[in-house]
């Protein structure tokens, strides 16, 4: 049996990678990929806690993880559509140059 802490360490590492990607990448799509990584890390945690919770038939962790997958799909669809729309107007997807509100 794999101890729970191993899963948690993996999830922590993936989350950190995603966080770094979301903070440090220049391309908006790469930022989005970082966010997807973070959501996946959260999913690993949820499922791992469900597995080791002692109440496997409760399924709350799995249901939550499925909802996160659905939210991630919606987020990716709208986020990428936004990026495409912005690209069409500004010809860039560089997050440093996207300063429409800064005037």
């Amino acid at each position: 049996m794999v101890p729970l802490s191993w899963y948690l360490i993996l999830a922590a590492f993936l989350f950190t990678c995603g966080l770094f990607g979301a903070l440090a990448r220049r391309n908006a799509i790469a930022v989005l990929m970082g966010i997807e990584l973070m959501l996946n890390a959260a999913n690993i945690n949820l499922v791992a806690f469900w597995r080791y919770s002692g109440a496997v038939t409760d399924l709350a962790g799995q249901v939550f993880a499925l909802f996160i997958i659905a939210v991630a799909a919606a987020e990716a669809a709208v986020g990428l559509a936004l990026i495409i729309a912005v690209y069409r107007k500004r010809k860039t997807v560089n997050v440093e140059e996207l300063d429409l509100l800064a005037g």
Partner: protein
Amino acid sequence: MPIEIPIPTVTQVIFLVMALFTAACGLMVVISRNLFHSALFLVGALFGVAAIFVLLEAEFLAVGQVLVYIGAIATLIVFAIMLTRGMMRGRTSPMNHVSGRGALGALVFFVALLAFLKKVPWPEQAQAIPVDESLIAGLGDKFVTTYVVAFEAVGLLLMVALIGAVMLARDR
């Protein structure tokens, strides 16, 4: 006193291999220069996560992960990369100007998480999972009973996302 080296079980070895693969792919996603390679590494990481789900005996989630993340979201990301390819070259660095601070923040965050992880005595054993389809049926049952509000909210979210994204992404 002789030091005892614990012999890992087969499951543990498979977990370690999969975890290393996932972690390596996850790291490459954020540091790869080529955006398309980033997307490929993302697919690798998502596969790794699906394998982790299998090891956690959440098979429905594993298959769902492959179906939705790799089949749909990764494809969508590649499409978007193609559509916005104007900035693929001529750039020296894929990182923005706050990347140093971002790296530092992420590192601090990781260390804090590890420190927290060490504090708690996590369980090492889990109870057995029923081998039949009762868990999948249980999921279906939970969707329409306990979590029905969330379920319908997901339906609404998907509809709104579809409408909003179509509105944003249309050519005209």
